[in-house]
C-alpha cells in the first residue's frame, strides 16, 4: 500500500504556510527537523489542558495521570524499536545528549578489569567512529579522548560517499573499546551496513553505538536484530516535538554505567554523606523530565505506525529515485554522496557549478523552497568530498513529487539568476 500523500499533508498545519509573495511552502528540510502532524500538537495540548503534573512523585489524580502518560510513552517507544524491555528506553533531550551521556559515563568508568567498569577507557584504548558522523557523534568522543588519554580513530570514506571498510580490521582492533557510527548520514544520505561493523566490534569486544537519528524516522528499525549495544535518535526529526530524544541501550549496559546527571528521580536513598541510585531507566533521568514532549513523541510514533514504517520507507525511496533522476537534468549539478538509489535514504546533497550553496538556498527560498545549505554539522564530510558546503534536499512522509519538481524548476531559476 502506498501512502496517500495528499491526505497526509492535510494533517500538517505548517504545510498550508505561504512565504514571501504568497509562495506556497515547499519544505525540503526534513533531515534538519520534521514538521508535526496535528495529532502530535493535540496530544501535547491535551496533556497541558487536562493532566499536567509532575511525574512519579505524586499520588493525586493529575500526578497519576501524568505519570501514566509519561511511562506509557516509554512503552510506545520501546515497542517501536523492538526493545527487549521498557527499562532500556531512556528519555534524553535530543540525540546529542544521548551520545554525550554515553561518552561521559564511559569516561567516568575506570578502564580495565578489577576496579569496576568493563566499559571504561584510558590511555592505550581506542574509540572508533567514522568520517561521516554528525558533529554530535564526533565531538563527545574527542572530548572523551582528551579527558581519558584514549585515542580516536575513524573509518574513512570512498569518493562516492560510502564507508571504506577495506581496512576495517585495522581500524577496529584489540585496543578498540567503543565503536560509534551513524546508521544513515544526514549529509550524504548513505545508509551504512551495520552487520559487518558490529561483527568486527564483537570480535574485539568493543561496545557498539548506533546513531539512528536519520533512520528511525524513515524506515523500520529493529534495534534488537541490529544487535548493537546502544542507539540514539531524536524526537524532532520523527514528527515529534523538540526537546526530547531517546537513548536505548541493552539493560546490562545501563546497569554497568555510572549515573550521568545527579538529582531528583534518579536516586534511591539520599543522605548528605552519599547517595544510592535508582534502577534504569530512571537512573539516567535526573530532574523533571520532558513530560509533554514524551507524550508528543508517543503520538508521533503512533502516527508513524499508523502510516506503516515500510510504507514510509517505500514512499521515500520512490521520492529519492525520482529526485536523483530529476536533479540530473539540471546543468552543472553534482550529487555529493551516493548517486544511485542503492543503500541510501531521502537526503540528497549537491553542488551547482561553482555557485555557493548559500546563494542557491537564498534564491530557492524566495520561491518558497526550503532546503538546507552549509556543512550540515558534518564539516569533515565536506572536507573529504572537496566542497566547502552543499545544498541538501531531504524528505519525509509528507513530501510530494510535486515538491521535487518545484525544486528542480527552482534550481533552473537559480542558474539564470546568477547568469
Amino acid at each position, binding site marked *: 500500500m502506498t501512502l496517500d500523500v495528499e491526505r497526509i499533508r492535510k494533517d500538517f498545519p505548517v504545510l498550508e504556510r505561504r512565504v514571501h509573495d504568497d509562495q506556497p511552502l515547499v519544505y525540503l528540510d526534513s533531515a534538519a527537523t520534521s514538521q508535526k502532524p496535528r495529532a502530535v500538537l493535540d496530544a501535547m495540548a491535551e496533556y497541558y489542558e487536562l493532566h499536567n503534573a509532575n511525574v512519579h512523585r505524586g499520588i493525586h489524580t493529575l500526578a497519576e495521570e501524568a505519570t501514566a502518560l509519561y511511562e506509557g510513552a516509554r512503552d510506545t517507544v520501546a515497542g517501536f524499536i523492538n526493545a527487549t524491555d521498557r527499562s532500556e528506553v531512556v528519555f534524553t533531550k535530543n540525540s546529542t545528549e544521548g551520545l554525550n551521556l554515553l561518552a561521559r559515563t564511559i569516561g567516568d568508568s575506570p578502564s580495565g578489569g578489577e576496579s569496576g567498569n568493563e566499559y571504561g577507557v584510558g590511555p592505550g584504548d581506542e574509540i572508533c567512529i567514522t568520517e561521516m558522523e554528525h558533529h554530535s557523534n564526533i565531538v563527545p568522543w574527542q572530548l572523551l579522548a582528551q579527558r581519558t588519554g584514549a585515542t580516536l580513530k575513524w573509518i574513512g570514506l570512498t569518493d562516492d560517499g560510502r564507508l571504506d571498510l577495506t581496512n576495517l580490521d585495522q581500524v577496529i582492533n584489540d585496543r578498540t573499546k567503543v565503536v560509534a557510527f551513524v546508521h544513515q548520514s544526514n549529509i550524504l544520505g548513505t545508509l551504512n551496513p551495520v552487520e559487518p561493523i558490529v561483527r568486527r566490534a564483537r570480535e574485539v569486544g568493543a561496545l557498539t553505538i548506533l546513531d539512528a537519528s536519520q533512520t528511525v524516522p524513515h524506515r523500520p528499525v529493529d534495534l534488537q536484530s541490529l544487535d548493537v549495544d546502544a542507539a540514539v535518535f531524536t524526537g524532532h526529526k520523527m514528527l515529534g516535538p523538540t526537546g526530547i530524544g531517546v537513548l536505548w541501550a541493552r539493560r546490562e549496559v545501563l546497569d554497568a554505567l555510572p549515573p550521568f546527571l545527579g538529582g531528583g528521580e534518579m536516586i534511591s536513598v539520599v543522605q548528605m554523606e552519599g547517595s544510592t541510585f535508582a534502577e534504569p531507566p530512571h537512573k539516567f533521568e535526573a530532574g523533571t523530565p520532558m513530560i509533554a514532549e514524551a507524550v508528543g513523541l508517543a503520538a508521533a510514533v503512533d502516527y508513524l505506525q499508523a502510516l506503516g514504517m515500510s510504507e514510509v520507507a517505500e514512499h521515500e525511496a520512490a521520492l529519492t529515485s525520482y529526485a536523483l533522476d530529476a536533479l540530473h537534468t539540471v546543468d552543472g549539478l553534482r550529487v555529493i554522496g551516493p548517486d544511485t538509489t542503492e543503500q541510501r535514504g531521502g537526503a540528497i546533497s549537491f553542488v551547482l557549478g561553482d555557485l555557493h*550553496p548559500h546563494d542557491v538556498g537564498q534564491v530557492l527560498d*524566495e520561491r518558497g523552497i526550503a532546503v538546507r545549505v*552549509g*556543512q550540515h554539522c558534518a*564539516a569533515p564530510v565536506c572536507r573529504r568530498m572537496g566542497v566547502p*558546503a552543499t545544498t541538501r534536499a531531504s524528505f519525509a512522509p509528507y513530501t510530494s513529487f510535486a515538491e521535487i519538481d518545484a525544486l528542480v524548476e527552482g534550481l533552473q531559476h537559480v542558474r539564470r*539568476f*546568477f547568469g
Partner: protein
Amino acid sequence: MNLESMYQEIILDHYRHPQHKGLREPYEAEVHHVNPTCGDEVTLRVHLDGGTIADVSYDGQGCSISQASASVMAGLIIGKPVGEAQHLQEEFLALMQSQGKVEPDEDVLEDAVAFAGVSKYPARVKCALLAWMAWKDATAQALASAPSMEESS
C-alpha cells in the same frame, strides 16, 4: 522583489570580479576566520604603514555576499588612516545590524551601501561581516605588535 535588494548588481559584480584578492607581502598580522555553519572562510593580512592601512590582502571561499564584501571592504579601506577605517567598520557593522531600518550614508560607505539589503536577512549578515571582522581582528593584532603605530594613528 526582495531578493534583488540583497543581490544588488554591484554585489554580483564584486563577486564575479573580486578586487585586491590574493595574499600579499609584507604584512604585520594574518588571521583566519570562519563561519562554521556554512563553511565560509577568509584568510586576511593587514599591512600598516605609519598609521595608514597600506594593504589588506585576503583569500578565501564563500558565498557571493562574503566574497563581495571582502572585495568592497578592501577597496574602501586600503590607503585610509587606521582610525578612519575603524570608523568605517563601525558604520558597516551598524548598517548590518539595522535589519534594513537604517538609511546608509553613501558618502561614507560608498559601494558598501549596496549591502543595506543584506541586513534584512539575519542569516546572511554574518557573511557580509566575515571579512570586516577578520580585518578588525588582524588590525588589532598588528597594532598590538607595533605599539608605536597605535600612537600615530
